């Protein structure tokens, strides 16, 4: 029943789109006011999609296996929380969620943009409706979440156990708010270009939307990363997997866009940058959807594998790209180059430098992600691009980037003398000395790491000084930049000082290493609602006399029958102790992996700081300096 309501309401919501378009075109030229019918219809559309989404959630909650999506991804023994989260833990349901966010955002946009021109609002709505219709057709035609099975099966196939996790339950909605939020930026930029509406006022209005999707995207990536860290048991937080890259690319574009908007808001320059980046952010999100949903990439996360779906998104994506190119070249008034003069030492220049660095990082990731596809089509060779590629191409450029980031925010608009040269120089010396001291104690490449750590430290101390010193003049920027410096430092230390032991142990055996001894004490079993757990108990005697108890788990799920390994992680402010355990087939041995990972918690904290910086900017009414 819930499925039936969901299905009908989805079709009615699509019909709303056409009504909205009809009234919008009618309203475009006559009347001064926005027709209130349009807002009501937009709300109705959102409401219908919400009903449809709830219909799917209810089908999951009541385990209605006559619905194919529920049958494929749920099971009666699954805990209620994961029955609910399972509704967006699959291709069809997640697209419905995507639609829900699309319709919600355009409704909020109409409510929030009352001070903008009527034509601009209507045109943005029209562009957004084009995207919405595209997704409606995609959902209804190729990925309908309400397909019937007759006769209804007694039991479902179950949700992949690695998705049964609190972090991953909220990760998709948060991430989608970020991804889909960028659609508003896209529509709004296209409409402003068409109407030649780009102004300082518009920049301020758009910045709110950029901040909203930026905050959600940052948090979404963070959640995914935390999940991968403890659930996949690889002991890392970033693997340069295509799916991760696909979320990082719009993030980079969005971050650059945010910086450009700050300039546009002040000086009405960099308009081309703003438009191109607004277009790029959404097309990169769409491109990500294409890469992940079409199954064109070999990735650990690829979860839909249907060329028909892929083809649909591909065509839709390129229609949007060609539409954007057309609007950009046909309507955009390019800035008059003679009027704009950039002093080399000014905030504008430093932001422009930041832009180019960001574009470089973005291109490296884009090439690394799609290159295997190109190579396979052109020469039938199969390769996969891994971390060494990204490290080699990104790290050398990270060093000047960090230095520029340390100095850039100190500059003034238009033209400035670098103030406080002495402390900037003093900080450099201090960071350099600290870095030598730190890197000396690690057995990594001395030269590269010293320079890298110096750059990171330099950014850290300069941002820390602003953070604690100035009179909360620009709190959001300070928070975000300080968070970023903390992030880079934590990642560097994490890479340099991590230690790892992989060994096979039986119950009762021990492993002695230089700094610690691992004792495998015993193994317990525990029965749970939908899995059985084997819990190992390990004690670790550290050299300093500290004893740590770690209890990694193996979970044997009943539906589907999959073994997952749950890491046990002991976190403190200095380091994480991370242990996973795996079965060795037909043996009494267990494969043990023990890692000491310094500063892990600071990676999470720093990303939270970064998004908190965005939040303070969003909430702040005052004009930024």
């Amino acid at each position, binding site marked *: 029943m819930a499925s039936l309501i969901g299905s009908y309401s989805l079709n009615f919501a699509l019909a709303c789109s056409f009504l909205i378009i009809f009234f919008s075109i009618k309203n475009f030229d006559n009347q001064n006011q926005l027709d209130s019918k349009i807002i009501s219809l937009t709300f109705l559309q959102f409401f219908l999609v919400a009903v449809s989404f709830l219909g799917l959630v209810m089908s999951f909650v009541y385990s209605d296996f006559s619905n194919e999506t529920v049958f494929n991804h749920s099971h009666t023994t699954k805990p209620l929380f994961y029955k609910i989260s399972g509704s967006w833990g699959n291709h069809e349901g997640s697209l419905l969620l995507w639609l829900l966010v699309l319709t919600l955002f355009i409704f909020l946009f109409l409510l929030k943009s009352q001070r903008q021109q009527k034509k601009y609002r209507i045109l943005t709505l029209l562009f957004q409706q084009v995207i919405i219709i595209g997704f409606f057709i995609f959902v209804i035609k190729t990925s309908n979440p309400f397909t019937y099975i007759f006769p209804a099966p007694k039991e479902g196939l179950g949700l992949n156990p690695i998705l049964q996790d609190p972090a991953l339950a909220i990760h998709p909605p948060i991430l989608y708010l970020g991804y889909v939020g960028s659609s508003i930026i896209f529509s709004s930029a296209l409409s402003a270009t068409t109407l030649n509406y780009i102004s300082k006022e518009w920049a301020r209005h758009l910045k709110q939307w950029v901040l909203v999707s930026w905050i959600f995207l940052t948090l979404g990536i963070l959640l995914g990363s935390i999940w991968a860290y403890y659930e996949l048991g690889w002991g890392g937080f970033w693997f340069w997997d295509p799916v991760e890259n696909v979320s990082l690319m719009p993030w980079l574009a969005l971050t650059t866009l945010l910086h450009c908007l700050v300039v546009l808001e002040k000086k009405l320059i960099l308009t081309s940058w703003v438009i191109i980046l607004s277009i790029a952010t959404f097309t990169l999100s769409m491109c990500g959807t294409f890469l992940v949903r079409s199954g*064109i*990439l*070999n990735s650990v996360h690829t979860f839909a594998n249907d060329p028909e779906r*892929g083809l649909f998104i591909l065509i839709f994506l390129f229609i949007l790209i060609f539409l954007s190119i057309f609007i950009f*070249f046909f309507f955009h008034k390019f800035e008059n180059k003679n009027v704009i003069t950039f002093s080399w030492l000014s905030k504008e220049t430093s932001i422009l430098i930041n832009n180019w660095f960001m574009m470089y990082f973005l291109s490296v990731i884009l090439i690394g992600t799609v290159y295997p596809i190109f190579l396979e*089509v052109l020469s039938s060779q199969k390769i996969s691009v891994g971390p060494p590629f990204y490290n080699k191409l990104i790290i050398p450029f990270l060093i000047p980037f960090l230095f520029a980031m340390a100095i850039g925010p100190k500059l003034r608009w238009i033209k400035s003398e670098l103030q406080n040269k002495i402390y900037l120089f003093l900080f450099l010396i201090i960071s350099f000395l600290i870095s030598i001291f730190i890197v000396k104690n690690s057995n990594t490449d001395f030269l590269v790491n010293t320079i890298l750590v110096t750059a990171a430290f330099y950014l850290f101390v300069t941002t820390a000084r602003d953070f604690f010193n100035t009179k909360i003049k620009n709190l959001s920027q300070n928070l975000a930049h300080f968070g970023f410096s903390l992030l880079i430092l934590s990642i560097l230390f994490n890479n340099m000082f991590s230690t790892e032991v992989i060994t096979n142990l039986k119950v009762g055996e021990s492993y002695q290493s230089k700094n610690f001894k691992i004792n495998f004490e015993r193994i317990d079993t525990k029965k749970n609602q939908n899995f059985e757990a084997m819990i190992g108990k390990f004690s670790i005697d550290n050299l300093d006399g500290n004893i740590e108890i770690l209890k990694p788990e193996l979970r044997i799920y009943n539906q589907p029958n999959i*073994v997952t390994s749950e890491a046990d992680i002991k976190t403190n402010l200095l380091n994480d102790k991370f242990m996973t355990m795996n079965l060795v*087939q037909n043996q009494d041995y267990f494969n043990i992996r023990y890692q000491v990972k310094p500063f892990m918690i600071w990676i999470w904290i720093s990303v939270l700081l970064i998004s908190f910086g965005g939040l303070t900017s969003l909430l702040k009414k005052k004009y930024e300096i």
Partner: protein
Amino acid sequence: MKSKTLPIFLITIFIIIFYIFYKGLQNPNIYTPDINIKKDIPNFKTKVFDTNNIINSNEIFKENKFYLMNVWASWCVPCQEEHVFLINLSTS
């Protein structure tokens, strides 16, 4: 519109990208390993799991007959399923 070269160039590039993605979609995306016929296995040394003795691959693959070498991991479910068959094969 000032210059037509840039938009035309961009559109051409995107059409090419579209074509490549389109072709990419038709390829089966199931992993198919390279076939290495008439190539030697690289030499390696490794520890025997139960005894910790070191063995050299040269000593194992020295005779002129067929060998079957299986690369597997403890956590790999298809490998576990394959095991029964392989063990039967080696004992029969």
